């Protein structure tokens, strides 16, 4: 799965926001608000990846329990899916 639109991501204090670029902005007019870990997941989704691949990348980068990481990834993907931002 991957992101449906092209986004620009901006760091704002401790968080990140993503805004759709160009013509896509008329289809998704909103902003995606993220923390550091969800921003990492978001970045992975620029390419076509599976949930397992994302979790694997995160385990390399972050020192946290796999169960926890899996849950965070699943929750964030669900949010993106709800907003119709993912292409499967």
């Amino acid at each position, binding site marked *: 799965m991957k992101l449906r639109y*092209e986004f*620009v991501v*901006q*760091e*704002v*204090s401790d968080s990140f*926001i993503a*805004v759709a*670029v*160009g*013509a896509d*902005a008329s289809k998704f007019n909103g*902003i995606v*608000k993220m923390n550091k870990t969800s921003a990492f997941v978001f970045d992975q989704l620029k390419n076509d990846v599976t949930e397992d691949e994302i979790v694997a990348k995160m385990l390399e980068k972050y020192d946290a329990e796999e169960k926890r990481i899996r849950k965070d990834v699943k929750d964030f993907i669900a949010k993106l899916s709800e907003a119709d931002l993912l292409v499967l």
Partner: protein
Amino acid sequence: MAFTVKMAGIPFEIEAVYESTREYCRDYLTDEEPAFRIVSTAELIRDERRRSAEAGDTRTWSDACLETLAVYRQIAEAMTERDVILFHGSVAAVDGAAYLFTAPSGTGKSTHTRLWREVLPKYGHEVLMVNDDKPLIRFTKDGIFACGTPWNGKHHEGTNTMVPLAAVCRILQAPENEIRRLPAENDWPVLLRQCYRPEGAGHLAATLRLLDRFSRELPLYELRCNMEPEAALVSFSAMSGQKI
């Protein structure tokens, strides 16, 4: 036909199809060497017509009129490379400080800045209109400035000047007058909605970086107001910190 103008302190050349566009920019003409060039074409004007239609605009625009919109769009895109963004709002300056009122069209930004012009002089504060509709906002090491441009609303209220911005205020219509400071987390949706959103990824990234600075350096207020003179006193005293 080409001519050079200076806006937000930056000179640039415009090559226009219609003479009326040069006339539209007459208060901003300059002899200085241009830093960049904008070219208007019949195709871009057609594009602008299509956008108006898509946005649900039912007014009839002539091609000459549409050229001014098409040109400003290009200016907004190019200016993001020079730390300038385009904002939709009415800017009034008092005692050397500018205040930007933002809201969807028809909410009452111009009405409110007009109230400032009627009411504040009675209390000894002269009000200068910087730009009643679409100011350019320039970011420098010395501060954030609101700039006059020819695109200053249907009554053409504005001045060819740059004034440091002191605060930004979102307006909502309400029966009673009330103002509050919004926490910074609320900034982004408001700011993004009222700022020109460029089409190029690079320009959009530049805009977001500038909005981040905007959000960090300028206080954002929310004003609920009616059209009574008291509304002007409520907003001015809160935003300027001066007791009226």
